[in-house]
């Protein structure tokens, strides 16, 4: 115990650890009760699911090959042969669904509490970009198992992009990496899914959380006189 203290003291002198800890975890948050208090946990829930996705995703990548002749077999290998592979893949798949749900719920709580207002506009804007990134994760990840559902869902997705006026056909072509879906589609979706999107998301979540700590979390909106009277 005493040695622990000494070690912590030593680290603190050199890193300011204590101050950092206090700023992050011992900061003041609004007092709230009941369901309102629970709504404040949604942001942390987003962060938790994101971390789970990163861990399970890295492990899946160890046995996955983004090429049309191996993608499906490697996913089957994970499902059928790797120890706990089915469970891990399940976590990543359900996590992906939860991610969208939880991020949307978090956004709704911020919206209905008016927490996006001055001075938190940039926090909100970062959030909007993060939401788009989460959608991009879903779209690119869905293709990777390279089964019938994955293939046709992406074909439809690319066609939807193709409906955009003027630039549509070009966007669809760029998405697919050519006229037709194939090898290039799978590799670029993979690169986006495991390299580009995670790095961007981690960066934006970092900025988002910095701003949350910087501004402090907003109070729940006050009830107006009329609401109080009608209660």
């Amino acid at each position, binding site marked *: 115990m005493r040695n622990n203290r000494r070690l912590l003291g030593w680290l603190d002198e050199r890193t300011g650890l204590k101050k950092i800890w206090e700023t992050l975890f011992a900061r003041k948050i609004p007092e709230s009760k009941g369901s309102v208090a629970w709504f404040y946990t949604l942001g942390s829930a987003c962060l938790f699911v994101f971390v*789970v996705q990163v*861990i399970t995703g890295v*492990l899946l990548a*160890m*046995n996955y*090959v983004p090429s049309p002749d*191996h993608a499906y*077999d*490697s996913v*089957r*290998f994970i499902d059928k*042969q*790797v*120890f*706990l*592979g089915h*469970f*891990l893949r399940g*976590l990543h798949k359900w996590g992906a669904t939860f991610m969208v749900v939880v991020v949307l719920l978090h956004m709704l709580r911020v919206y209905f509490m008016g927490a996006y207002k001055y001075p938190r506009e940039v926090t909100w804007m970062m959030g909007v970009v993060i939401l788009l990134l989460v959608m991009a994760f879903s779209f690119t990840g869905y293709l990777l198992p390279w089964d019938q559902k994955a293939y046709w869902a992406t074909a439809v997705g690319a066609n939807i992009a193709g409906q955009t006026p003027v630039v549509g056909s070009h966007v669809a072509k760029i998405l697919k990496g050519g006229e037709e879906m194939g090898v290039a589609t799978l590799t670029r979706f993979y690169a986006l899914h495991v390299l580009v999107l995670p790095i961007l998301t981690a960066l934006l979540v970092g900025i988002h959380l910095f701003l949350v700590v910087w501004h402090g979390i907003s109070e729940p909106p006050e009830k107006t006189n009329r609401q109080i009277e009608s209660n």
Partner: protein
Amino acid sequence: MDGSSDNTTRFSRRHFLSWIITTVGAVIAAVLGSTAIGYFISPAFQRKEENWVDLGPIGTFPKGNPTKVEFVQRMRDAWVTTERRSSAWVLTSDGENYIVFDPRCTHLGCPYHWDEEKKQFLCPCHTAVFDVGGGVVSGPPPRPLDRYQNKIVDDRLYVFPKPTQVKT
């Protein structure tokens, strides 16, 4: 315990909450962590399936002198079927009983060769010498040449290309 809202009691609300968070967090970390570790190390413990490989009709192997035989081995490696070029040294004195040697030196795995004049196997890497039966004559190898199981079916020689050690 009276005054449960009092934060100075021994087990305060604050204590309770941080205890809950730590415990639940630890359980989640343990489940996720052990899954991750199990998943990560499991390929190391997976058995590779090897198959019997047909080396050809037994009449083709000269008697007395070891012959190097090249073959192609098809095997399942994770999610792909690979073809691996491989070889073995086949030795027979009567055309009926065979010994098949793994082609790698038992020291550090260099491919050795048969010296026709000396009637010995020589390893170029650290000058090991083995006799015709695979026994160590000189050099650093810790044990005789490893062997492959073999069998004869319909006058063809089959080997199971998984090295088995021979005790000295």
